[in-house]
Each structure stands twice: as structure tokens, then as C-alpha cells.
């Protein structure tokens, strides 16, 4: 029995040992391998020592594990490639970023510089502006600056004080608005409400305050090219008001001085004239021929002096603005004829001929200050005779149309040098070529003539060639009552 039992237990042991070796051990090994795999260790070894189904299973498992290992390795490889790529890319990116940062830093620096420059420039501009404003403000001339829309953008101190206004009263206003500002109405009125260019026109603001007003357009661009100037954009208008009271006063004093002196000189000159005349007329007693000849020369010198004084007085009157007097209708040809008569002696002496060509059809009358127009004709004739050679001819002719009469006096005399033509009508001008031949002229005749013709709204001009002769012309408008009535 025991034997049986022992045999039984021995066989059980044997069976168990076989079972253990074949099944339990490999399973335990598998469990361990699985645990290792779970932990991430794919290198755990699977011991295969059986050719049983379990062994088969283990072999498949090992193959699977091997596959897993390979794919894991592939994955690892892919991962490491990716990592390398990422690193490279990151490197690239950070390089790019670094570069960009550099650029940005440079740009920021530039920008800072620019801002600094701009601030500097702005400060400079501001300073310049302030300087300009300071200059403009302290100018002795009054200044009104209008923008391109003709609104007043600036007025300086002097401008304010001329018109007794505050800048806030007028800034932003247009010239037409000035109409309603009491202090500025005279300016508005003077400019006829327009900002058309104007050069130094006189305006008496009040007793003792005379100003000259200029209106100057302002434009962008170069100013040295006059043709381009037309295209320039207008940026505004400048109205400049200058105090000329002192100049006026000095001018007035000068004119008064000349006037007074000339008057004072006339009395002794009259006395000399009268005394000489009476001596020459033998009212005081007999004189011999030689004495007579001398007295005659003194008399002529005195006459010249009287002529000069009269010219000076006329100039003084022109400058005092009280020259023209009474306008009466006259026939110009008649006035000319009577003026020619006063030259009879002189003409005879030089054996000259004066031809007066009067149109057949009666000319219209002209309304003029006859005495003054007489002076013009006198001066023109006087010059024509003085500057012509003996026995030469002078021709006076007229032409007329519905608006004006033209007077022409042609001589064959010395002529006017080209270089001096511009100055013919200026005060105290005498032609270089005639100073030598004729010492009598005052240099005032043509100045007076031009002033007289200008005051009559006529024109005076000449054509001349040296050594060939000169033709002087002047026009006088015909006062046509009917036309005037139509206009008014």
C-alpha cells in the first residue's frame, strides 16, 4: 500500500515536474518578459526550449517581439531623424530670428536717429519760424498776410498799430469782410476790395499819416525764372503798408523851398529885366552901340534865368500836386499857331521855316488847361528850334480820330542818342550831344511836358535818330460830352 502510495506520489512528482517544465516555467518566463515589455524593455529574452504548442506560442511571441523591436528601432530612428531636423530647423529659425533682431535693432536705431533729426529739424524750423515771425513782427512796415483762400492769416504789430486793430478781430477774415470793420474800411476802399497786385500806391490814412500800399502775390517755387513763375502755385498774398509820412513831409518842404526861392528870385529878376529894357529903350538916356549890344546880351541872360525859374516853379507845382488848373475847350491848332508866333524872332534869326499843317476838316475842340498845353507846345518848339541847324525846317501836323487828337512836331536836328532815349522825360536830363551845342536848356522842359500830358490823360512819345532828327508826338483825349453822358 505504502509502496503504491509512494509510487503514486512519485508519479505525481514526475508528472508535476514534467508539467512544470513544459508549461509553468515557460508561462512564468512569458509573464516576466511581458512585464519587461510593459516596462519598455524589449530586450527581455524569451527562453524557448520546447517543441510543444506552448513552445510554438513562445516562438510566435518572440517573433512578434522581434518585429516590435524592429519597428521600435525604426521609430527610434525616425524620431532621431526628426529630432535632428527639428534641431536644424530650430537652429535655422533662431539664426533667422537673430538676423531679424539685428535688422530690427538697426532699424530702430535708424528710426531713433530719424526721430532725433526730425525733432532737431522741427526745433530748427520752429526757431526759424520764430525768427521769421520776430523779423516780420518788428518790421517797420505793416504786413498783412493772406492765405490762398484770401483769408488773413497773419498781421504784424505795425499793421495792427496802423489801423488800431487787434489780430483776433481780423485773423481769418477776407478782404471783403474788412468792409464791415470800421478801422479797415479805408484800406478796403483803397484796394477796391481786390487783392490785385499793386505797387506803392499812396493812401492818406489820417492827417500826418500817409502810407504807401503794395499788394504782392506769393507763390511757391523759384522766383528767378519769370516764365516759370506763371505756372507757380499761388500760396497767398502779401499786403505791405509803409509809412511814408516823413518822406512826404521832406518832399513837401523841399518843394515849398523851391517854390519860395523861385518866387523870391522873380522880384529881382523882374527889376533887372525892367531896368535893362528901359536902358535899351533909351528911356534913361542915350547909349552907344557897343553898350547896347552888351545890354542886349545881359537882357537875354536874364530872360534865360527867368525861364529857368519858371520851369523850377512849374516842377515845384507839379510835385506839390497843384499844377493843373482850369480846363477849357480849345482848338489845338490855334494854340499852336499863337505859340509859334512867340518864336518869330528866334526863327528869323536862325533863318528857319516852321510849317504848320492843319487838317482841312476842322478838328474837334479839346478840353484842357490851355496855359499848360501852351507850355508843352512851347517846350517842344523851343527844343526843335534850339537843336536844329540854321535854315532847317520844322513841321507841325495834327491827326484826330473819335477819341483823341495827335500832335506831331518833326525836326531835322541833332536827334537823341539811343543810349539816352530812356531818360528824355526825367528831371534835369539833357542830351549829351546837345549840351555842347546849346548851353541854355534847363533839363526840365520835357519833364514838365510829360507831367502836363499825363495829367490830361494823354500820351507823349518820340521817334529819333541821331544826326537825322526827332519827331515828338502827344495825344489829348477829346472830351465828348455825349459819350460821357452815356457812361454815367
Amino acid at each position, binding site marked *: 500500500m505504502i509502496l503504491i502510495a509512494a509510487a503514486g506520489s512519485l508519479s505525481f512528482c514526475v508528472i508535476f515536474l514534467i508539467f512544470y517544465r513544459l508549461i509553468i516555467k515557460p508561462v512564468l518566463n512569458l509573464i516576466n518578459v511581458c512585464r519587461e515589455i510593459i516596462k519598455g524593455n524589449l530586450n527581455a529574452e524569451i527562453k524557448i526550449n520546447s517543441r510543444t504548442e506552448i513552445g510554438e506560442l513562445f516562438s510566435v511571441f518572440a517573433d512578434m517581439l522581434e518585429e516590435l523591436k524592429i519597428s521600435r528601432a525604426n521609430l527610434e530612428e525616425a524620431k532621431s531623424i526628426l529630432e535632428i531636423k527639428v534641431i536644424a530647423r530650430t537652429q535655422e529659425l533662431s539664426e533667422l530670428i537673430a538676423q531679424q533682431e539685428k535688422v530690427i535693432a538697426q532699424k530702430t536705431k535708424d528710426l531713433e536717429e530719424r526721430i532725433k533729426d526730425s525733432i532737431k529739424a522741427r526745433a530748427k524750423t520752429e526757431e526759424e519760424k520764430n525768427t521769421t515771425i520776430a523779423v516780420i513782427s518788428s518790421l517797420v512796415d505793416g504786413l498783412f498776410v493772406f492765405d490762398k483762400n484770401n483769408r488773413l492769416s497773419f498781421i504784424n504789430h505795425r499793421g495792427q498799430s496802423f489801423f488800431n486793430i487787434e489780430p483776433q478781430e481780423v485773423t481769418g477774415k477776407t478782404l471783403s469782410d474788412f468792409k464791415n470793420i470800421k478801422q479797415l474800411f479805408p484800406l478796403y476802399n483803397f484796394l477796391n476790395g481786390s487783392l490785385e497786385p499793386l505797387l506803392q500806391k499812396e493812401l492818406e490814412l489820417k492827417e500826418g499819416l500817409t502810407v504807401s500800399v503794395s499788394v504782392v502775390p506769393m507763390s511757391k517755387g523759384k522766383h528767378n525764372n519769370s516764365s516759370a513763375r506763371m505756372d507757380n502755385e499761388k500760396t497767398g498774398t502779401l499786403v505791405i503798408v509803409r509809412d511814408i509820412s516823413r518822406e512826404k513831409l521832406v518832399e513837401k518842404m523841399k518843394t515849398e523851398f523851391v517854390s519860395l526861392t523861385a*518866387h523870391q528870385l*522873380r*522880384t529881382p*529878376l*523882374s*527889376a533887372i*529885366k*525892367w*531896368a535893362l*529894357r*528901359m536902358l535899351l*529903350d533909351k*528911356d*534913361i538916356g542915350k547909349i552907344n552901340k557897343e553898350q547896347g549890344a552888351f545890354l542886349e546880351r545881359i537882357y537875354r541872360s536874364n530872360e534865360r534865368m*527867368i525861364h529857368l*525859374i*519858371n520851369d523850377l516853379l512849374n516842377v515845384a507845382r507839379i510835385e506839390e500836386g497843384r499844377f493843373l*488848373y*482850369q480846363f477849357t475847350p480849345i482848338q489845338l491848332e490855334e494854340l499852336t499857331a499863337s505859340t509859334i508866333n512867340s518864336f518869330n524872332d528866334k526863327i528869323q534869326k536862325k533863318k528857319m521855316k516852321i510849317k504848320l499843317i492843319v487838317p482841312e476838316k476842322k478838328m474837334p475842340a479839346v478840353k484842357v488847361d490851355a*496855359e499848360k498845353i501852351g507850355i508843352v507846345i512851347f517846350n517842344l518848339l523851343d527844343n526843335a528850334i534850339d537843336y536844329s541847324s540854321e535854315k532847317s525846317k520844322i513841321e507841325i501836323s495834327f491827326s484826330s480820330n473819335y477819341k483823341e487828337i495827335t500832335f506831331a512836331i518833326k525836326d531835322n536836328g541833332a536827334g537823341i542818342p539811343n543810349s539816352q532815349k530812356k531818360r528824355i522825360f526825367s528831371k534835369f536830363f539833357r542830351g549829351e550831344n546837345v549840351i555842347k551845342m546849346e548851353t541854355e536848356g534847363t533839363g526840365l522842359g520835357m519833364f514838365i511836358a510829360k507831367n502836363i500830358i499825363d495829367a490830361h490823360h494823354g500820351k507823349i512819345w518820340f521817334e529819333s535818330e541821331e544826326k537825322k532828327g526827332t519827331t515828338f508826338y502827344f495825344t489829348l483825349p477829346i472830351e465828348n460830352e455825349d459819350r460821357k453822358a452815356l457812361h454815367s
Partner: protein
Amino acid sequence: MKKILIIEDEEVLSDLLRKKIEKEGYEAYAAPDGEEGLKIMREIMPDLILLDILMPKKGGFEVMEEMNRDETIKNIPVIIISNSGQPVELDKAKALGAKDCLVKTEFDPQEVLDKVKEYIGK
């Protein structure tokens, strides 16, 4: 003999005129200013007066104004002998009743005398 009164402050001119006029057979009187002129005028009652404008004490215009107010001397003809010959002056003289206005620098004593003859004869 016709009497002519010269009212003129410039002695030379006055003397010269006087000489010329006397030579022609007139009786000539002279006054150096307007005041004296009016006085002599009322005394001698001249046939014609030669009158200057700018004078001390009383000027030519004042003399004429006073003459116009005084019936006794109102109608004595006056010829102005003036220095300036400005139109304004000449017109004023004419308005006050002057027969003529002669500018001294433009006329000489003979021409003045001719004017005298023209107005009052010999």
C-alpha cells in the same frame, strides 16, 4: 494930366515904372504898401492904379476889397502887376474887379504903359 498911382513895395520896380509913366506924360505917384496906397488914393483920386499883390501891411487883394467897400474909390480902374502869375491869383484879382493882370517877369515897363494907355488913354 491923368494921375496914376503905383502901389508896389519893390522900390526899383516902382521907380522904373514911375519914370516910364512920367515920360509918357502922366502924373505918377508911388506907395510902398497897401495902407499908404489907400491913403494916397483917397487924397489924389487917381485915374488908374497899378497894384502889386504881395506887399507888407496891406496886400493888393485887401486894397481891392477895401476899395470895393468905399463908393468914392470903388470905380478907379486897377491893373494888377503881380509876381507869380498863378491862375488862382489872377482869377481872384479879376473877381475883385481888376481890369487886367500883368506878370512882372513876362511884361516890361513899355507893355505896362501900353496897357495903361489902353484903359485910360492919354
